[in-house]
């Protein structure tokens, strides 16, 4: 889950990380009551990157000007995301910009600290143009990020004296935040030198959805559509796409290959729902309810290969909530005979192989099915 800057900065504040004074507002009139020192910066709160270039960050010298900028930014469309909130913060005179982040490195299967003296620009750009400016320090999860390791990283960025001590305090606090809050990414860019002190001018926080149960205090995600949120509350992964065939499958890999398969036969998925491992009859019932509520669905493709998921459970779920649009069902794997019998007894066909079932789903949606590809 990706947090907004203002939400990330609230969390940063709790860990003693230095952030500018500021408040998030939804209406321009609210600027007057903020009691901030001017000039201020008005920042669009969106989850996509590149908001500065899109005109979503503006400097304002007076309350009147701040209200005007807020009015201009609120309601703006930044790469398809509508701005409904702006963060107003006291402007900072930035002398130098650094970069600091803790990130889960999946290939190395561990946490890494990434830091650079070339801050303020996207770190991918730095990685491409001047990789020598990026310092990396791997974290032993049983050791955490001790001050000596933070100190070594700070020296590689050129810090010394009191500023090095400040860097060590910030890096160790950021790691504590990263680990305690179950983050996938905790990023400060820029970590700026302002009046001789380090300040977290921007904050990015991506949290691990699997660990949400440990953090009831954190804000709810705003990236999801209402149906996506409802699916998640039921423990189902649902994603909206822009075609007209609803897809239910089990397992991320199978669902992805199902989308590829529909595309191969000339169809387009409207959405997909992964009922996951060990799905019950109830979760199948819920899944059917959710995928069909999206407008414009013309057919439904259920592609189940049972492992930990039992075909008989899935079939019971389908029978209890039969599809309202034409359906093509492929059901095989654990307890498949029992599953197919349950469907047959209710007059639902389910004996097709995956390629055949995908072709049928495309035909049912009124699309022109291509010929089967290399087999």
């Amino acid at each position: 889950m990706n947090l907004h800057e203002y939400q990330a900065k609230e969390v940063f504040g709790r860990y003693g990380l230095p952030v500018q004074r500021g408040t998030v507002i939804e209406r321009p009139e609210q600027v007057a009551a903020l009691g901030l020192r001017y000039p201020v910066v008005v920042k669009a709160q969106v989850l996509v990157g590149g908001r500065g270039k899109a005109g979503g960050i503006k400097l304002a010298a007076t309350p009147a000007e701040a209200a005007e900028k807020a009015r201009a930014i609120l309601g703006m469309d930044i790469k398809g995301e509508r701005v409904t909130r702006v963060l107003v913060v006291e402007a900072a005179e930035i002398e130098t910009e650094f970069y600091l982040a803790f990130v889960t490195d999946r290939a190395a299967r561990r946490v890494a600290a990434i830091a650079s003296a070339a801050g303020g620009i996207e770190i991918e750009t730095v990685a491409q143009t001047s990789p020598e400016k990026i310092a990396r320090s791997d974290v032993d999860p049983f050791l955490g990020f001790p001050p000596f390791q933070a100190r070594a990283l700070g020296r590689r960025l050129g810090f010394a004296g009191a500023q090095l001590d400040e860097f060590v305090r910030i890096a160790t606090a950021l790691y504590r935040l990263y680990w305690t809050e179950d983050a996938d990414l905790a990023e400060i860019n820029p970590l700026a030198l302002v009046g001789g002190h380090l300040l977290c001018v921007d904050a990015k926080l991506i949290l691990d959805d699997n660990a949400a149960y440990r953090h009831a205090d954190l804000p709810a995600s705003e990236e999801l559509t209402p149906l996506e949120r409802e699916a998640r509350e039921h423990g189902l992964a649902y994603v909206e796409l822009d075609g007209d065939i609803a897809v239910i499958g089990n397992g991320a890999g199978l669902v992805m290959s199902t989308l590829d398969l529909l595309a191969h036969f000339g169809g387009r998925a409207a959405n997909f729902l992964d009922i996951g491992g060990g799905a019950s009859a109830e979760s199948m019932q819920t899944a059917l309810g959710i995928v069909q509520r999206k407008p414009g669905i013309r057919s439904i493709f259920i592609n189940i290969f049972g492992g930990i998921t039992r075909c008989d459970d899935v079939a019971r779920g389908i029978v209890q909530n039969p599809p309202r649009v034409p359906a093509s069902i492929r059901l095989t794997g654990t307890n498949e005979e029992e599953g197919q019998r349950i469907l047959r007894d209710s007059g639902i066909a389910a004996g097709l192989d995956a390629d055949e079932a995908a072709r049928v789903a495309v035909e049912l949606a009124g699309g022109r099915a291509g010929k089967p590809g290399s087999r």
Partner: protein
Amino acid sequence: MAIIVGGETRLLVQGITGYQGAFHTQLMLEAGTRVVAGVTPGKGGSRVHEVPVFETVDEAVRDTGANACVIFVPARFARAAALEAVQNRLDPVVIITEGMPVHDAIEVVAYARGHGVRVLGPNGPGVTTPGQCRVGIMPTHLFKPGAVGIVSRSGTLTYEIVAGLTRAGLGQSTAVGLGGDPVVGTSFVEALELFNADPETHAIVLIGEIGGNAEEDAARYIARHVKKPVAAYIAGRTAPPGKRMGHAGAVISGTEGTAEHKVMALEAAGVAVAPLVSGVPALLKARL
């Protein structure tokens, strides 16, 4: 001999008294697996399908000589279960559990490395050596003993491809499920090393998906070291661009991670990549 599990495996099941644990214990027994013990705190002294249940892994190992472990416990207890298994030197430790926090997986993997123990998963289907041993949830009836090694990031796609191989008359040496989570215990390269060294494995199928760069690493390894024929399938060619990629994550993986990039890397390494799941058996057969 196959790899990772076989006739010598004496399996301990954590979470054996749960719905999934009990159900799959029965199926593992039917597949010929020697399931010697179960562990569920608070349920010691009972039996599930005649398998004795213990309070702790320590007691179970002393009493039964268990040497491998599969974990079916809920996500919030999976970290402790896996650490307990590693501390008792069970090897491999196979984590079926889905939804385990990534930081928990990082700790388990680091701890296992320190103990020289192999972890498979989390969020994987386990590992099966057909005719000898099934650890996890792969449907037994799809398999047939043979010489094709399978390594996969996806459970259901593994079943799909194993079924196709069996229909095509291509039996399997071992099928290894790596798990679909961002951080898992065993990589493609580590599994390929084992298959490459296994005289009973004559060909390899690699099943990957978008995200990360494990397939690219595998391609580099194959180009350098693998003489056996390799076929592959990569899921997610038409998936929408990921919503989950963070900035610094992209630094580490560079431009790698898309299906096109993975397919290109594998093809450049001489791997036959099938555009559809159903195309894998024929592609592999053509290379044998």
